[in-house]
């Protein structure tokens, strides 16, 4: 039997999905610990041999595609001019490419900031600044500084098009740079797709930096994108559908992980009320936000010590836990898996905090203002009140007895009526961890990927 194999190198698990190429059915899924310390190939081989054992079938793998978030995933530094404008656009472009944005810089940089960038563990720098035909001083200054410090990582230039020739001259042969379209060609208009695509290509070419990836790459047709980008692709496909088949419409994907909680929304997010004025950057249809302080393991500590401590108390209800002990245990042992009711309950409470805060930060906000013409409203961000579906993914939800309870805390609340969170969506669950695999399959055959998604994503 001919089959496709999709691989997701995660920071904890390497997940494999085997798909029958003729009937487009999932034959098997399997996971094994990712072995970044030694050689990523080991974990992959182990999972693969398990699949062979499990299926007891002979299949001929015709194509392997992989996505990866191993070794912390793709890390980007975004540079722009005004924090709320080009710097924010650059950040969103990087997030849309599936990257982790480790820091955002604005205005003309100084020497010590550039040193900080040079000493960081970023894989790519995204340099923006100025609308097309707009400010050129800042981006040229920053490009000179990059050249002066001889930055060794790839630089993606997505700024004022009028400066491109100057920047090419400044960078010459010393800097590994890639020119793409401006992330904000006109004021408040965000254009992230071209930069996203360039970032993905660089990611493909540079993936060998993660230990063991070189060997894997020879064996696998391609490591094509960071895992969050694959999840985003699957969400987009499930929402929009293909030419032949309709999608589900507006939806949100909440991905609760050990280190971050990601929220992806596929929705325009236009105002649902009248007399609303939209403020700030136009929102992309596919929007991804990443909360680096909200997670079940590595980020459990920042969650507890930061904004989530109070909420954790609220969601735990039972108080016989030693909170700081439980949190430290999870922070220090990132690969523990809860094996009893009590631990699961605690994990679910942490997950509720993740959902609550990440949905709050992802959703738009509305502010009322009295004017001589009566009450008017400003809306910043997306209005998600009428969204149809919330799709949950991640181990804590899959292993939960009532994943709906966890996702429900992300809904609109009367006491916080200015936050435009969903009011009455249906809930879905990625029970078999197939989102990233289907994001990969969509690169080969969108229709089949959509069909499998609809079949395997269950309503809860």
């Amino acid at each position, binding site marked *: 039997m001919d089959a496709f194999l999709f691989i997701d190198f995660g920071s904890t698990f390497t997940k494999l999905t085997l798909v029958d190429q003729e009937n487009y059915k999932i034959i098997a899924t399997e996971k094994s610990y990712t072995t970044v310390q030694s050689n990523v190939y080991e974990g992959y081989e182990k999972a693969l041999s398990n699949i062979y054992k499990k299926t007891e079938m002979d299949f001929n793998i015709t194509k392997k595609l992989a996505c990866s978030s191993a070794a912390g995933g793709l890390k980007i530094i975004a540079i722009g*001019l*005004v924090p*709320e*404008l*080009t710097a924010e656009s650059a950040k969103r472009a990087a997030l849309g490419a599936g990257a982790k944005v480790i820091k955002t810089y604005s205005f003309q940089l100084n020497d010590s900031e550039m040193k900080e960038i040079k000493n960081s563990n970023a894989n790519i720098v995204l340099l923006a600044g*100025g*609308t097309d*035909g*707009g*400010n*050129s001083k800042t981006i040229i200054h920053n490009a000179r500084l990059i050249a002066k410090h001889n930055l060794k990582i790839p630089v993606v230039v997505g700024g004022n098009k009028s400066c491109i020739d100057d920047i090419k001259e400044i960078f010459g042969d010393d800097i590994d740079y890639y020119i793409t379209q401006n992330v*904000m060609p*006109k*004021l*408040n208009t965000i254009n992230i797709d071209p930069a996203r695509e360039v970032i993905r290509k660089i990611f493909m070419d540079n993936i060998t930096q993660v230990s063991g990836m070189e060997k894997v790459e020879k064996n696998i047709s391609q490591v094509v994108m960071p895992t969050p980008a694959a999840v985003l692709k699957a969400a987009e496909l499930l929402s929009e559908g293909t030419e032949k088949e309709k999608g589900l419409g507006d939806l949100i994907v909440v991905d609760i992980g050990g280190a971050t909680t990601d929220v992806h929304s596929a929705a325009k997010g236009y105002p649902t009320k009248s007399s609303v*004025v939209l*403020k700030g950057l136009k929102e992309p249809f596919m929007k991804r936000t990443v909360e680096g302080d909200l997670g079940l393991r590595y980020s459990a500590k920042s969650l507890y010590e930061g904004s989530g401590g109070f909420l954790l108390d609220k969601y735990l209800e039972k108080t016989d836990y030693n909170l700081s002990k439980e949190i430290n245990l999870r922070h220090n042992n990132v690969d523990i898996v809860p094996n009893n009711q009590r631990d699961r309950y605690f994990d679910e409470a942490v997950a509720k905090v993740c959902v609550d805060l990440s949905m709050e930060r992802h959703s738009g906000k509305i502010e009322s*203002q*009295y*004017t*001589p*013409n009566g009450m*008017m409203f*400003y809306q910043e961000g997306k209005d998600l009140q009428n969204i149809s579906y919330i799709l949950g993914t991640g181990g804590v939800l899959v292993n939960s007895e009532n994943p709906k309870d966890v996702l429900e805390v992300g809904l609109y609340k009367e006491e916080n009526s200015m936050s435009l969170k969903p009011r009455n969506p249906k809930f879905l669950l990625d029970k078999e961890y197939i989102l990233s695999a289907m994001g990969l399959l969509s690169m080969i055959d969108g229709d089949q990927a959509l069909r499998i998604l609809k079949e395997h994503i269950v309503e809860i």
Partner: protein
Amino acid sequence: MQDKKTIVLGVIGSDCHAVGNKILDHALTEAGFNVVNIGVMSPQEDFINAAIETNAQVIMVSSLYGHGEIDCRGMKDKCLEAGLDDVLLYVGGNIVVGKQEWKDVRYRFNLMGFDRIYPPGTSVERAVEDLRADLFKEHKAAV
């Protein structure tokens, strides 16, 4: 040919009068300017941020609801702080409460750092004429 000059246009404060804003946008674009329209209900910061990113030569503030004087206070200082020393500030509309002596109003806005101040009923042509005089030296010499 010289590059088009850029104007950041908007209605300041809690003012939601959109019609005049659209007319100005259309007329100024027609007159050959690159108009960056930030729309109604815009705080000072939005004008300034827009001017920085777009490298604008002029910020043109409209106000129709009478609170313009309060809304415009401190705007020049913020421009200076943001490095927009050379950006011209224009303001027009019903910029003060009630009927006041125009001379006094103009003087107060001059003190606030505005370069051109227009009373109610000013034609767009007048503003276009002034823009050309302020932005193109050759034009200034000819008139």
